[in-house]
């Protein structure tokens, strides 16, 4: 009897810990081969046949299609530069330059990957439409209230995610050799 209960307890513990670990890794986004630059993280291998089992399980669960390695690479930011979660009620300044790419797009999503409703119907910028300074640098204002210049509305959602996609870029293709590639800074200015 004692043996039976011990075995039962062991199996229950194994199932709980095993399933818990799976749930944690799939919801927290654990994947190998991450390339982190400032607030931005990309998984260049996820766009190729070398994708790891965790990333495969994550995309199967969420239903997204990763950017193919021959197409480009996607950088995700869930936090600002000092690791505070991105809050739609705050104003952020994104500034700097980007790694070499023929085109890039910057898009704002909610944590589930849905676009965020706003009056302008603006969900991002492309490298072609962004307003730049004379030296090629640019700043994007992300926040709930309208700003002059490049304003990306965050709709006041509790949490948001920024995705920077570089298309036709040597990053990722060149085996992560461009690790020092500059990515724009994400700085929180004020919160309402």
């Amino acid at each position, binding site marked *: 009897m004692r043996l039976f209960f*011990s075995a039962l*307890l*062991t*199996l229950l*513990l*194994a*199932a*709980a*810990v*095993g*399933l818990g*670990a*799976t749930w944690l*890794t*799939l919801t927290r986004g654990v994947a190998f081969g991450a390339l982190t630059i400032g607030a931005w993280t990309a998984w260049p291998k996820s*766009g*190729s*046949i070398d*994708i790891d*089992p*965790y990333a*495969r*399980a994550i*995309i*199967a*669960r*969420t*239903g*997204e*299609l*990763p*950017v*193919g*390695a*021959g*197409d*480009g690479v*996607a950088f995700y930011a869930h936090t600002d530069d000092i690791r505070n979660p991105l809050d739609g009620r705050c104003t952020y300044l994104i500034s700097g330059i980007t790694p070499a790419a*023929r*085109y890039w*797009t910057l*898009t704002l*999503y909610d944590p*589930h*990957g*849905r*676009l*965020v*409703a*706003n009056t302008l119907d603006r*969900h*991002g910028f*492309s*490298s*072609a*439409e962004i307003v730049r300074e004379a030296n090629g640098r640019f700043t994007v204002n992300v926040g709930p209230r309208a700003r002059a210049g490049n304003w990306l509305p965050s709709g006041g959602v509790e949490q948001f995610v920024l*995705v920077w*996609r570089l*298309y*036709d870029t040597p990053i990722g293709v060149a085996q992560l050799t461009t690790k020092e590639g500059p990515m724009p800074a994400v700085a929180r200015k004020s919160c309402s």
Partner: protein
Amino acid sequence: MMLRLPLWILGALLLAGIVHLSTVLAMPNAATQDAYSRLAQLTPINAVVPLPPPSAQDATMPFMDPAFAVAVCRYDLSSGAIKLSAPLSQAYTSVTFYTRNSVAYYAINDRAAGRRAIELDLMTPEQHAQVPEEEDVTAADRLIIESPTRRGLIVLRALAPEPGLMFIARRAVASAQCRIEPLPGQ
């Protein structure tokens, strides 16, 4: 009895590891909301279908890039190879190939294609082996892609550098073609 407790715990942890790894590995085949399943409800097989642009209310898949016009060819190579031809739009056009389980196994963009259109043949490794060799040589500029799975997705993406140019990008991906080409002897 006290000696046995660590053994039970060790056993539980080992089992937990097996449960964890097997559930992670089984996820791609167990998922019912993966990209292929979502698109299976919207698209016929072996035809290019433009996807509605993502909006805050609705999107076919999460994390779609709203700056792109997207069309999908959900393919099944059971009855032959696929001939794909995608005209290039003005700005940037790419074609990405995914397996049934959303693994991007090949991607090509307009610059790599180099011509006015991206044209290629998609087949299984077995079908590729059946292609006569001389045909392979004479058609040196014919790009042949091998699909690791019988079924999968071809995703055509054309960039609209600004929202006003979206109609051009949409027209480009919508005029792409993906046709099944019965193999000789089939």
